[in-house]
Each structure stands twice: as structure tokens, then as C-alpha cells.
């Protein structure tokens, strides 16, 4: 893998603020929306992914600081356990190294809960992971997925006409309430 500092064009001694500035500058430059040409857009998207990955990696390394070296490897192990579907083992390791002040720990615990269907716990852990580390896109994605479900989004809904979901839902709901009341009157079987 390429050196994340090289991708962002900074030295490893750069301060957190410098890393953020470099990231912002590059991401604005390569944002796919700025490139209308399809070939350029593709290159820009690819570059964007690289920049994001590099940024996440640097931030992860810096946040966990020295503890990264010692406990970082065990989190990688847990990740691979989760990926191979071994949730019970992953949960055991997580419980043994309980560390709910750590964003990664909360995220992994949330993933295990999600796989078991314990959605409320999963939501709480993802929420905490995002609060501890707002810049991490992986945590953010997991959290916003839960959030959209909480607000009543259903994947693949054929009745969803788009537009303002809340408004549409309200109008639909009102309409349906009227219909169902009318239906109660004539439906005598």
C-alpha cells in the first residue's frame, strides 16, 4: 500500500491541522462534481477514494496513538472474524477487551449487534463510534444507514415516489386514513 502521507503530499511530521487542510484542498480539487467529462470524472472518483483512504488511515493511526500498536492488531483480528461470519468469537474478544472509550471498539461491537439483529444496541454503539470519531467515513456510513432506517426508510420500496419523503408520507398517510375509514363503512363481510 502507498504511503498515506505521500498521497496527501505532506510529511509524516505534519500537524493534525495541516493534514486536515491538505485533505480539504485535495478533496475539493478532485471532487467528481467539478468534472463533467466522463473520463476525468472516473479519474477524479478514483483519486477521491485514495485521498479518503489515506486521510482515514492517518487519522486512525494518530487517534489511537501508541495504543494502536498494542491493541490495533487485535481489532484487525476481530474485523477478520466478523468478515468471516464468526460473530460469537468476535464478541468474546470484544468483551474481554472492553474499551467503550474507543471508537473502533464501539463500531465493531455495533457490527456484532447488528448481525444478531439487536438493532437498538447496534444503533447506540454506532452513535458512540461516530461521536468519538466524527471524521471516519466507515462509522459515519454505518450510523447513517441505521439513522435512515430509524426514520422509516425501507430499501426497495416500490411505493416510494421520491420527493420530500416526510411530506409525501404525510399526505399519503392522510389519504390512506380517509380511504380506510371509508372502507370500514362499506366492508361488511
Amino acid at each position, binding site marked *: 500500500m502507498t504511503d498515506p502521507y505521500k498521497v496527501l503530499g505532506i510529511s509524516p511530521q505534519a500537524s493534525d491541522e495541516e493534514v486536515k487542510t491538505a485533505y480539504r484542498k485535495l478533496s475539493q480539487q478532485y471532487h467528481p462534481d467539478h468534472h463533467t467529462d466522463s473520463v476525468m470524472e472516473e479519474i477524479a472518483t478514483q483519486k477521491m477514494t485514495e485521498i479518503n483512504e489515506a486521510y482515514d488511515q492517518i487519522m486512525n493511526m494518530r487517534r489511537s496513538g501508541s495504543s494502536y500498536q498494542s491493541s490495533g492488531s487485535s481489532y484487525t483480528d476481530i474485523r477478520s472474524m466478523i468478515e468471516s461470519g464468526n460473530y460469537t468469537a468476535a464478541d468474546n474478544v470484544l468483551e474481554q477487551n472492553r474499551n467503550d472509550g474507543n471508537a473502533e471498539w464501539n463500531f465493531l461491537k455495533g457490527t456484532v*449487534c447488528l448481525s444478531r*439483529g*439487536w*438493532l*437498538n*444496541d447496534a*444503533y447506540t454503539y454506532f452513535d458512540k463510534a461516530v461521536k468519538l470519531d466524527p471524521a471516519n467515513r466507515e462509522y459515519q456510513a454505518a450510523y447513517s444507514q*441505521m439513522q*435512515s*432506517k*430509524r*426514520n*422509516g*426508510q*425501507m*430499501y*426497495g*420500496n*416500490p*411505493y416510494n415516489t421520491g420527493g420530500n419523503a416526510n411530506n409525501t408520507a404525510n399526505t399519503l*398517510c*392522510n389519504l*390512506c*386514513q*380517509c*380511504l*380506510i*375509514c371509508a*372502507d*370500514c363503512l362499506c*366492508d361488511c363481510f
Partner: protein
Amino acid sequence: MFGYIRPFKPYMRFYEFEIYNAFYCGLCKSLGKNYGQIYRLMLSYDFAFLGILHNAVNNTCNKIEHQHCIIHPFSKKACICCVNNLDYTAAAAVISIYHKVCDTVNDSNFIVSAFFRMIRSILKTGYKKAKLKYPDLCRGIEFYMSEQSRIENEQCASIDLACDPTAQIMSLIAQGISENPKDKKYLSGLGYHLGRFVYIADASDDLEKDIKNGNYNPLFLNFKDIKEAKKFAENNINMSTGMIAEFYSKINIPKFKEIIDNIIYLGLPNYKLTHKKERKKLKNNQIDV
């Protein structure tokens, strides 16, 4: 199983509704024929959904016949007559109904308990038959029923743990629908969240009653304010319906897709309009047009 999984009628086509009802009738007849008449009185609409899902996933061939029925003695009703396709659903219904009655026997006061004890003794023959046919399913449900009462006795405050046994039961029932391992996996997830949905919806409906009677309700243990508890339940129900949709979209449904779409995408989120008990609450209020 409390009758929360129902279609949303205003958005249903007539023929779809006819098919849906035919499944309910077919299931009812199948129960009467194989497991005893008394089960027919206790059949909930949840199992009609399960029956349709079973036939949809396995793409079975069904015939609708117009038959007489005890409840409707003078008019013939459309009815799915190939009862073989509904056998699994009927057995699952028998097992669930029996355990629900057992649960009522244990939880109620003396008089109600005595009444349900009598019913249970009538139900027993049918249950034994279902147990012979599907011993693994029975054992699984028995285990999770005991888990359920353990959790209730412990006054467990975690909503996820509280609905786990009900969800596991539904998951067991749903994964028995298909032989295909890939579908089994998704059906198991779908069932889990259906069970979770049913449990939380029921807990939310019974909240006022449970507070008054001092019964166990995980929502009340978390929030002392009814409004907050209802909001919390609503959020959790939404998360479960979201998961249901996600699993459902991965299952190949060659048949009856529109009916199942209706139940999942409209019936579940609007359960307050489709469920009888909830609808009564609405009727007393005026609705803004």
C-alpha cells in the same frame, strides 16, 4: 403472533385481496382438517402472510376453489384447496397457537388460567400431530418460549434481549419455508425482524394496560414517560421494518410479489391502521383531511 402482519387494503387490487383471503381460508380449512376445529378460531392473519410467502418462495401451483364454510354458511368463499402447500404453515400456526395458550395459562389469574387450561387440553392432540411432523421446529420453539419467560421473570430492561426469543421463533419458522440455503439465510433474517417488529408493536400497544396492571413491559422499564416510550418503540419498529425490507429485497419471489410487497412496504409501516385493536383507537378520533 398477534395479527400485526397484514396487508394495507386501500392499496390492494381486488384480485390480490381475493388471493390473500383465499390463503387465509385455505389455511383455516387445513387446520380444521388436520389439527382440530378449535385451532380455526385462533388463527391470526400473520399466518396467511406466512402461507403466501411459502408458496411465493417455492413457486408452487395453487388452485382456488369456492367452498362452503362454517362462518359463512350461505355464501361460498374462495379458498386455496391444495392443502399440501399450506401444511408447513398450518403446523407452524398450530405450534405457535399452542404455546401462546400455554403462556396465557402461566401468566393469568386463577379463573382465566383455568379456562385456558381447558382449551389447552383440547389443543393438545393437534399439537402432538404437528410435533411428530416437525420435531425440530417444536423443540426450538419450546426452548425460546422458556427463554421468554425467563427474561420476563428477570425483568430485563434491554429491548433487544426482550424481543430476542419471539424474534428467534419467527426466524425458525420463516427459515423452514425454503430448502435453498441462500434463501434460508435471508428468510431467517426476515423472520427475526418480523418477530422483533411484532413484539415491540405489541409492547407499545399494551403499554398503558401493562403500567396499570403492573405487568412486565420492557418499554416502561426504560422510560417513565409514555410519550417517550412510544417514540422509542416507533424508532425501533422502523429499524426492524428497514431490516425486513433489506432481507426481503434479496429473496427471489417469482409469485405473488405484489401482495407481499403490499404487506411489507405498506402493511407493516401502517400497522396502526391495519391492526384491529389499534384501529379502534383511531376511530374515536377525528382524522384531518
